[in-house]
């Protein structure tokens, strides 16, 4: 190959490499946005259900359940046989429940710990626990399932149990039953473990006194074991408080419909009551504080009606999902927090019982004819909807729907509260205070530096300010949190005064300067006022600080005490004011630098014309230069705004990071950006919280994109405008 061809090949090669590489790099930068979107997509995907083939022989089943991995299925038949199968239908155990003898099982219910309460036709109840006995053989999971009977008890001498509800903790087991003679009875089993390892079990049975005129149709115990609800044939809900030695009626609530309550159940956490009635109405009720402070049952969520009489419901052990089924063979999967019906299944004929598998990834149902049906169910993010993110949601124990961010609680049963509104609010609040502090200072300083300052001084001031823009925000956050916050707390009143006193001091200095004799006055070179003012400002601040004690004494018990007593304003040490100042410091150099550029770019002939027409320098600056540069100043403000909205470290270090909705200057807040930093260590990959954090990142991304683009467009306009001159 000759030299020319080699050079040509090299040239073409370089062109292709650079074009390809450049396009690839730019595309991958832009693909970042796509990735952020991609990570949030699963949130909006609806649930998937898929029927699964399952053939199990079991005569008249009353309960069906599975282990955590849906690889072992458990069942109990009406004649009291406990069964376990592997998922392909192979029988693993088949043994009679010894304690039952000849009694038949009529109803069964699952508690939150996976223990089942069985009720029989002879008024006895039996808790049973299934264990898959899983172990590893190499890397494969094998099972040796077993079933444990936890001690039978009689609630009455005779009668068939028709409804049952129960809880099972380590030290207390409770079971509420509705018998065929319309009586409601409670079994209370207290278990005491002595230090030596012995166990004492005490069973007590209470009869619940029912008011006359109504017939009980459903029972349910709340998870705390202290409250019992009974649904009646007239559609009311009766409430009893349970204690160690009895029951006491505490409430009687009428539902909207007068149709009989046919199904009562709870949700995970045991504080929401799922109420279904004969006409297919489905609601969630829970207790919430009234204005007077006592708890009352309120109707919080209303779901889509089912077609026929609601026969039962069963909660998920994972989240606030639950199953509910009616007489026509329809099963709805609903989500409590959002009042949403997530999925609808048709089993074809009447359902005896149905259950969500422990990981809520499958649904098992027993039909009236004894057939067992199975569905795979996949609904990873039921708690996230547009409404929970951006709207008010009625959470458990709240009197009304609210904006609330509380991603995790102390326990697994906590209801995640994922409203982004308090965070967006926090971002805006922090930004607003920072801008209120920084914008006037930065723009006035830019105006002075550009128009009035001596060029030689300007050549020092401007780079200094620009250098300031590069100081890492973690440094400003540190100073704000460790140095400023404690000092502000003691120097609060004086700081508020400083805002008035310093400008007055500056004006005074100016006025004094005017009255100075001419020879003295000329000693100060024009355009160096800021330097002359520096000692005055320092002195002013020092004097104010010295007066702080005296000033604080003017208020009864000190300023902060007075603030709280007189106005009910609580002062947090790390608050919006601290952030306003620290973040203001971070954006002052940015706003200053960009607006100074814009002001300096105003054509000289505009200034000259204005001065020639007799306007004073300030009039020229304020009425001619500033308006001409206003698009540039707008763009400076936008850029400062964008920076403040996304700032993380200052917020993280200088606020308490409390997600509250309150404009007060004296308390903290949590922003979208700081929230990501705070929560992401707690968010497992792929979890709802993880994806919601991606939503907030996406919001930040779009927000700054809009702000920066508008700044860009405006400053392009500005350039066009000057090119006319």
């Amino acid at each position, binding site marked *: 190959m000759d030299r020319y061809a080699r*050079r040509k090949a090299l*040239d073409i090669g*370089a*062109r292709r*490499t650079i*074009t390809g590489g450049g396009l690839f*790099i*730019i595309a991958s*930068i832009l693909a970042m946005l796509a990735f952020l979107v991609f990570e949030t997509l699963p949130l909006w995907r609806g649930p998937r259900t898929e029927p699964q083939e399952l053939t199990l022989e079991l005569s008249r089943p009353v309960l069906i359940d599975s282990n955590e991995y849906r690889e072992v299925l458990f069942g109990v038949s009406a004649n009291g046989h406990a069964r376990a199968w592997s998922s392909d239908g192979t029988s693993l155990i088949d043994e009679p429940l010894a304690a039952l003898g000849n009694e038949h099982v009529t109803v069964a219910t699952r508690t939150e710990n996976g223990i089942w309460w069985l009720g029989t036709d002879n008024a006895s109840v039996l808790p049973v626990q299934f264990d898959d006995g899983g172990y590893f053989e190499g890397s494969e999971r094998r099972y040796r399932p077993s079933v444990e009977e936890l001690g039978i008890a009689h609630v009455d001498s005779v009668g068939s149990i028709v409804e049952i509800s129960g809880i099972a903790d380590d030290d207390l087991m409770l079971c509420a039953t509705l018998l065929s003679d319309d009586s409601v009875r409670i079994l209370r089993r207290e278990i005491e473990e002595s230090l030596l390892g012995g166990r004492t079990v005490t069973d007590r049975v209470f009869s619940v006194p029912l008011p006359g005129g109504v017939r009980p149709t459903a029972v349910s115990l709340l998870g705390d074991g202290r409250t019992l609800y009974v649904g009646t044939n007239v559609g009311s809900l009766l409430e009893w408080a349970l204690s160690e030695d009895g029951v006491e009626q505490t409430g009687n609530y009428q539902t909207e419909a007068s149709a009989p309550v046919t199904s009562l159940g709870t949700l995970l956490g045991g504080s929401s009551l799922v109420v279904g009635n004969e006409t297919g109405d489905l609601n969630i009720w829970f207790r919430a504080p009234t204005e007077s402070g006592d708890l009352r049952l309120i109707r919080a969520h209303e779901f889509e009606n089912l077609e026929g009489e609601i026969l039962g419901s069963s909660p998920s052990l994972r989240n606030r999902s639950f199953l509910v089924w009616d007489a026509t063979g329809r099963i709805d999967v609903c989500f409590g927090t959002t009042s949403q019906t997530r999925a609808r299944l048709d089993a074809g004929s009447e359902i005896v019982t149905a259950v969500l598998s422990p990981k809520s990834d499958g649904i098992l149902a027993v039909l009236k004819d004894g057939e067992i049906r199975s569905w795979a169910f996949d609904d990873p993010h039921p708690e996230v909807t547009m409404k929970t993110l951006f709207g008010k949601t009625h959470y458990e124990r709240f009197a009304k729907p609210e904006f609330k961010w509380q991603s995790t609680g102390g326990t697994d049963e906590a209801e995640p509260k994922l409203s982004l509104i308090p965070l967006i609010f926090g971002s805006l609040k922090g930004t607003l205070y920072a801008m209120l502090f920084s914008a006037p*200072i*930065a723009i*006035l*300083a830019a105006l*002075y530096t550009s128009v*009035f*300052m001596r*060029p030689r001084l300007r050549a020092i*001031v*401007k780079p*200094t*300010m620009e250098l*300031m*823009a*590069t100081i*890492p925000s973690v440094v400003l956050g*540190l*100073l704000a949190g460790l140095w400023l916050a404690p000092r502000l707390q003691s120097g609060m009143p004086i700081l508020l005064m400083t805002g008035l006193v*310093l*400008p007055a001091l*500056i*004006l005074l*200095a*100016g006025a004094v300067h*005017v009255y100075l004799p001419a020879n003295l006055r000329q000693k100060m070179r*024009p*355009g160096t*006022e800021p330097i002359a003012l520096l000692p005055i*400002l320092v002195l002013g601040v020092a004097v104010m600080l010295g007066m702080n004690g005296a000033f604080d004494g003017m208020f009864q018990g000190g300023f902060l005490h007075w603030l709280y007593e007189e106005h009910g304003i609580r002062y947090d040490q790390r608050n919006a004011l601290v952030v306003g100042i620290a973040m203001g*410091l971070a954006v002052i150099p940015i706003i200053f*630098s*960009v607006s100074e*550029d814009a002001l300096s770019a105003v054509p000289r002939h505009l200034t000259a014309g204005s001065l020639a027409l007799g306007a*004073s*320098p*300030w*009039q020229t*600056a304020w009425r001619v230069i500033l308006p001409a540069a206003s698009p540039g100043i707008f*763009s400076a403000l936008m850029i400062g705004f*964008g920076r403040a909205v996304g700032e*993380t*470290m200052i917020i*993280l*270090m200088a606020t308490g990071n409390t997600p509250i909705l309150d404009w007060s200057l004296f308390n903290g807040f949590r922003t979208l950006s700081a929230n*990501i*930093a705070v929560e*992401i260590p707690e968010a497992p990959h792929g979890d709802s919280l993880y994806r919601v954090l991606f939503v907030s*990142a996406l919001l930040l991304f779009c927000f*700054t994109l809009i702000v920066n683009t508008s*700044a*860009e467009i405006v400053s392009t306009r500005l350039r066009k405008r000057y090119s006319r001159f």
Partner: protein
Amino acid sequence: MSVATPTKPASETQPASSKRRPRPQPSWQQARTSRFEFWRRGDAFVWLSAGATGFALLLILGVLYLIAAGGLGYFWPAEIVQVETTDGKTYLGEIWERQEMPEDIASVPGEHRIRIRAANRRLNGDGEFVWIPESQIENTSTPHGVVLLEREEYGNFIGYVADYQVDGAVVARDDAALEKLTERIGPLSDLRAEILGLARGDVGKINDAMTHAKEEIRGLESKGVTEQSPEVQRQRTRLTELEADYRDISGQIDRLRTELQRETVGLRTGDGRETRVAAGDVYRIVQPNDIGFLGEAKVYFGRFWTFISASPREANLEGGILPAIFGTVMMTLLMTVAVVPLGVIAGLYLREYARQGRLVRVVRIAVNNLAGVPSIVFGIFGLGFFVYFAGAHIDQLFFSNRLPNPTFGTGGILWSALTLALLTIPVVIVATEEGLAAVPRAVREGSLALGASKWETTWKVVLPAASPGILTGVILAISRAAGEVAPLMLTGAVKIATLLPMDSSAPFLHLERKFMHLGFHIYDLGFQSPNVEAAKPMVYMTTFLLVVIVVLLNLSAMWIRNRLWSRYRSSSF
């Protein structure tokens, strides 16, 4: 327009620009006619805006002063005072601060109290600091002979040296003991270094080899190779050998440790309580009340050297920050390696090779805007994409033996560097473009006219001419990366990293390791530390160091930009 203001065209920030377009001396004050027009003519507002400028400067200087004063002062050995109170107690320590008493506990209004850093953490319980109301102070003095010992555990000790024992027998007392200790500190610290070398280096290597052998065995097993096969047996033998080596070395370490513990120092506090400390656990002896200015300066620089050359101890409260400096530098270097070629190629494409049209304009705006996207967004992207997506796939492909323990599927220095590269790439692209745009057209045309191809022109003429501009961008990118913390919190910066991302065990560069970072160190010490008050010296010093690094980087960028400017000005022909 980007948020990173330094990326705007050189001419705008150029101090010399005023020479280029001479600005007449502002004449507004000379033009003033009447004193009574102070308000009407708006001179008052000029003063106000001058005040705002002054205030802004004051704030900035204040921040710089706070950092410098806070950081630089702490290493200077403070005088140790002895305070005797009216209730007969004696306190010995450095005066930490003085403030007005909170109203609810003051006996007289306006009373002040002082806070003394009495050190002696174990003896005084957790209370290293003591508040003393001034009304209770009976007598204050600065006694001679007081020593401050920096020791391995429980922070500093303040008091007197009582005796020096070897194997439990007293060999010296009081001043002689102090002398003996001073003399022994050097040899003992060599011994300590030897132990550390064994524990870090040799034990580390054996551990690595053992982990490797175990992984090999697991890998073979997962391929279905039986326990009896020669490969597995070979690894097993190797493991046994390594275990024997390990026992050897740990025996050696134990012997050295015993050696180190043989010599002990008896100490007496200001109020007469006694304690003992192994002489080998003493790092430095200071007699703040006796050494004079030069001695103090020596201690100051000694402490400063320890600060930048030692590893942290005691939950990062003592010792130095070498791993954090190392981590910051290494992460920044990695980022530079990634960002420079990518940014330059993208800039070259946009300015030299792409057809200038609407699309390129849009891309340019998009790239500029990317510089304004909050860093935490890059952080969460880095976590989701690099750590959970790319990292998890790398683990499955290359490190499946170690699963479920993640190798690259967790935060690490490589992922942090790449995240920051993404964050700073707009800065480099914009700077490259500007550098290229500033190269006069005539230069290119001259090169092309002489028969050079486009690539030859670009490579040999345009790029060299644009290189100062590109370098400026790179330095700005580095300075931004050095100070950024939020994305690192998500992608691999940690409180304490026992292993540096580079060491003597193969493959020398451990890109998957977590690392310490100056900025994160500040956040962690200042806000996550159990003892924030005691952490303050370290926090402020680290802050000072970080600010110095960032400011120096920016100053050098400005300097290069100025040179770049003068070069173009002179090249007009």
